[in-house]
């Protein structure tokens, strides 16, 4: 076991904890918006650490073997991470807006300023 293996295992553990937590949040919260909170934040964070684990593994193997395959693996996983970071919050925002516009109210809400604004616009 080298230092890289410990680093990879730590990253993978963090990634697994938060990915599983994101899926549990889907069953723990009462309505669409709160579920989106858990799903978007936790799975994005978990996937960041999965990519970091793969990147560390690829760098270590590149250093050990000198095979360019591992350079490609590291760079491509970083590109996948950037694509995911750009698209994930935008998709969550689109779902939340669509859910509110199609009439699903947030459960147990103490205030709903967006409904007041939409109600003023419809009059």
């Amino acid at each position, binding site marked *: 076991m080298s230092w890289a293996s410990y680093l990879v295992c730590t990253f993978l553990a963090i990634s697994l904890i*938060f990915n599983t*937590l994101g899926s*549990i*949040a889907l069953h*723990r*919260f009462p*309505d669409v*918006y*709160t579920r*989106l*909170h*858990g799903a*978007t*934040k*936790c799975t*994005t*964070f978990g996937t*960041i650490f999965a990519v970091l684990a793969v990147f560390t593994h690829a760098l270590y193997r590149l250093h050990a073997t000198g095979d*360019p*395959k591992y*350079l*490609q693996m590291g*760079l*491509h996983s*970083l*590109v996948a991470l950037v694509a995911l970071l*750009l698209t994930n*919050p*935008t998709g*969550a*925002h689109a779902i*939340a*807006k669509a859910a*509110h516009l199609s009439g699903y109210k*947030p*459960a*147990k*809400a*103490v*205030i*709903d*300023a*967006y*409904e007041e*604004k939409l109600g003023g616009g419809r009059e």
Partner: protein
Amino acid sequence: MPFIAAFIWSYILWLALTAGTNGLLWSTQELIAGVIFSAIVAYTTRNIIGEKAGRFLNPIKWLEWIAYIPVLFWGMTKANFHVAWLVITGKIRPGIVRVPVELENDAQYTIMSNSITLTPGTLTIDACPEEKALYVHWIDIPPGLEKPESSEPVAGPFEKWARRLGR
């Protein structure tokens, strides 16, 4: 200018995707094919990107983005432990609040919305540039903050960063 910006960024992406074809560097065929494909992409998207494309080529802006990464990452770490705590205890006080912001253009609104979606307890539902406000679903509203006066309790330092980055 949009042509040059799109060309350079597509070529950088091409170089990242094809590294390692000749040893650890690029083979000559890949480099030439990259020039051709980047030129095609840049020519077809020259009207979509807009006139302010020069800011994609500004090195100061790149450094600011790199300086932004630790701030965003720290925000995401706090957000995840917050959500983990909420998942375990189940005590939530959700609601949709209207947050007034002082931003100027669409890029700033995009950066601000995406950042506060990834940071503690908040999720952007709609952005209204005409009334300078964001509508934010807040999962755990502190008592007394149902109508926040500024974005400070909601987004922390991100409004300042969005104003600087999207200029």
